[in-house]
């Protein structure tokens, strides 16, 4: 299997970021880790959007991934980060396989609201679970990676970033192929015309179901990485405004390329960080204006800037 140009670029960027992390300040390392984790969840939202579905409940899988890490360490004594992430993915895939049977039967606002409803059910359950810290959540155990204890502070942050980069690279490489595979194109075809898809002999239900479950798994990795990096989980991970942020970032980046959610998540995280610092009472307004400008001038997201440039050049 030969590497394509996009794949070489993705590997190059990941290696460059890994090298930069050796000299970058701790706050930037932490911010980048969170942005990558967020981008993974957004990637799931983008997968659904490519199939014509907008999920306002992707926080459900983000939260499941995070809580699996927290609970795996707390109740099962698992400390290996990779094992905790695998646990998160397994739990999430199990839940998504059940929910997917129902939600993939719906479209448009009904899908959006149903996905939101399930994430809010989890939020409600967690808020009422006093053993899990209720609204405060709880701390994640000190994790190890392949038997190595990263310690605390900068070293831990750096290793969390390297782990996030490696996982994000793996997911991005997979999704880059997925988007251009038969099932990836079938998702876009479903968005365009379900009748024709069925008359081609393709089961739209099966395609949407598989896509939904994979999107959930990807979101779960994002949640697990956030929990490992932040060292804490709480019910707001499943709150609808968090899911709304994922949709916001997906629109910001666009659905045209696998790199778009990463760029958008980084921009979003930085804009939010500086907006909070510059205008503590109006930062949401700043984010709103940014989104408005994107919708007005770049309806296909930031990534369309690159494709437009390429088109002009050709």
């Amino acid at each position, binding site marked *: 299997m030969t590497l394509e140009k996009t794949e070489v670029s993705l590997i190059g960027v990941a290696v460059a970021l890994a090298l930069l992390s050796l000299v970058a300040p701790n706050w930037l390392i932490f911010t980048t880790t969170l942005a990558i984790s967020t981008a993974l969840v957004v990637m799931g939202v983008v997968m659904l959007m490519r199939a014509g579905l907008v999920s306002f409940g992707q926080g459900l899988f983000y939260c499941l991934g995070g809580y699996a890490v927290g609970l795996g360490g707390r109740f099962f004594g698992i400390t290996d980060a990779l094992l905790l992430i695998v646990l998160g993915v397994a739990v999430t895939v199990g839940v998504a396989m059940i929910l997917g049977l129902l939600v993939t039967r719906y479209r448009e606002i009904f899908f959006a609201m149903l996905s939101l409803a399930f994430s809010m059910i989890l939020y409600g359950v967690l808020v009422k679970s006093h053993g899990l810290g209720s609204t405060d959540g709880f701390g994640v155990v000190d994790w190890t990676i392949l038997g190595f204890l990263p310690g605390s502070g900068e070293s831990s942050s750096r290793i969390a970033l390297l782990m996030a980069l490696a996982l994000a690279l793996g997911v991005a490489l997979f999704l880059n192929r997925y988007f251009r595979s*038969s099932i990836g194109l079938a998702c*876009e*075809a479903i968005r365009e015309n379900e*009748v024709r898809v069925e*008359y081609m*002999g*393709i089961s739209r239900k099966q395609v949407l179901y598989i896509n939904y479950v994979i999107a959930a798994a990807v979101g779960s990795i994002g949640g697990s990485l956030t929990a490992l990096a932040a060292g804490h989980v709480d019910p707001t991970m499943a709150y609808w405004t968090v899911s709304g942020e994922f949709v916001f970032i997906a629109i910001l980046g666009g659905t045209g390329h696998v790199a778009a959610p990463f760029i958008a998540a980084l921009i979003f995280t930085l804009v939010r960080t500086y907006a909070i610092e510059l205008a503590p009472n109006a930062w949401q307004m700043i984010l709103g204006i940014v989104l408005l400008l994107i919708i007005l001038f770049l309806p296909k997201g930031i990534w369309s800037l690159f494709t437009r440039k390429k088109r002009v050049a050709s």
Partner: protein
Amino acid sequence: MTEILKTTGLSRYFGAVTAAEDINVTITEGEIVGVIGANGAGKTTFINMVTGYLASSSGTIEFGGKPIKGLGPRKLMRKGLTRSFQIPQLFLELPVIDNLAIALAAADHQQFQMIRPVHTTKRLEAAEEILAQMNIAQYRNEMVTAMPQGARKLLDIAIAMLGSPRMLLLDEPTSGVSMEEKYTLMDTVMEAVRQRGLTVLFVEHDMEIVQRYVTRVLAFASGIVIKDGPVDEVLADEKVQELVTGKPKTPKTEGGA
């Protein structure tokens, strides 16, 4: 010749409205059959029932000697029964080549493939072949939205033919196409059909097209088949002329009034 499609007592009611009633039709392999009738006569209802788009109220449908009533479009396509639409059903915001690539992947039963690109060399060659055959190769990399109506019709039919069907049902293939383009379009379609040895059933309003391309005609009126037979015989039938083709009746003699 082998019998390919047989409907017995096929009916569809919408409440008190009869859309189609007691349709008994047998079509043999290789036939090119035209379906004519005024608007609301039941032509599209008939095609929709046969292709699993609409459930029938009663009656049976057999394809290749096996019952197919109740089967959805996907299963019918896999059995070799496919269709095109009056309004082409395409992926408008995707390039033409992608429209064909996904159809070809489905035809290969590779629609769930996650890693290999959908555009394999074999599929691209097959897509180029059918694009050239349908005279729409110039739109290869265009979005479907950039295609004129006639080209969209041809792409819709091309996609329908990709799954190696045995029988193709065409719903008004020339509607919305200019007079000049109609014959070119139909010549292209019929040549592709002939090469594949397909059985064709097509709904058409243009009697010149019907006379030129079909050997047998089913004439529908008020949901029933009023005449079934060779094209010249059906078009010459007085009842068909009165209810379908709209030709004026021969004036009666004054004394007879």
